[in-house]
């Protein structure tokens, strides 16, 4: 879940995006997984869900070490950028890698944390544009 003020708005990258609702200094931890709020499924639980739910999780969540994770707040809408302004830590928390101005879109690099990125058809457009 986001630990800073955010809002949703139209993104120049893709559909809706998440925007900083306040100035965020470099180094700020901007989000952290909140157990019991953000969602986690092991593969068996994931496969037991209806196809539509699985599809949604693949689009909006991520696969890490055999488990699917998904935020339930604005984190659902964080877009990918190869020049992301937040970096994902090993514990799935995210840190601002530079100062982020109020009103700037918050972006992360999906390749840093999503093991399904290379195969998942939902990310084909991003892969085509290049993620280097």
């Amino acid at each position, binding site marked *: *879940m*986001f*630990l800073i003020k955010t*809002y*949703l*708005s*139209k993104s120049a990258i893709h*559909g*809706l995006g998440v925007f900083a609702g306040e100035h965020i200094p470099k180094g700020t931890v901007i989000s952290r997984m*909140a157990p*019991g*709020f953000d*969602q986690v*499924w092991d593969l068996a*639980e994931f496969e*037991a*869900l*209806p196809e*539509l*739910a699985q599809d*949604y*999780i693949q689009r*909006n969540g991520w696969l890490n070490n055999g488990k699917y994770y*998904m935020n*339930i*707040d604005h984190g659902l809408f964080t877009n990918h950028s190869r020049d992301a302004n937040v970096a994902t830590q090993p514990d799935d928390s995210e840190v601002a890698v530079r100062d982020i101005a109020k009103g700037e879109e918050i972006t992360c690099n999906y390749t840093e944390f999503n093991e399904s990125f290379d195969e998942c058809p939902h990310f084909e457009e991003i892969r085509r544009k290049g993620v280097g």
Partner: protein
Amino acid sequence: MYLVKTYIDKSGIEGTGVFAGEDIPKGKAVWKLVRGFDQVFKPADILKLPEDAQEYIKKHGWLWRGSVYMSADNGLYTNHSDDPNTIESEDRETEFAARDIKKGEELTCNYREFSEEFMTTLLSMKRFSGPGAVRANRGDPCF
């Protein structure tokens, strides 16, 4: 979980809203509670969560028969209308189109059909009273 195509956009009602991404005929099931996907909380567990998470649940969830429910998808952002175009089943687990809904029309429900208990019970909890409480169940600030 929405069973029809939807998208989120700026709402004429308040903040963010959910819009039909396809034409929906009257009577069609548009949303269904999917256990294991949509969230089901015990109120006591909510009070153990970080305060911001509690605020978010207060705004986007609803109480029904002792549990608090929250959609995990665009259902999070469905706005209230006094003349909604969806209607809940008696068990509150399915929503149907109350009339024909055109692609691009905002999907709305009547919070009072399922939220009155949520409002009165949760707002009486210590953490859910105070200045923020009046914002409960309002659209998400956006755009």
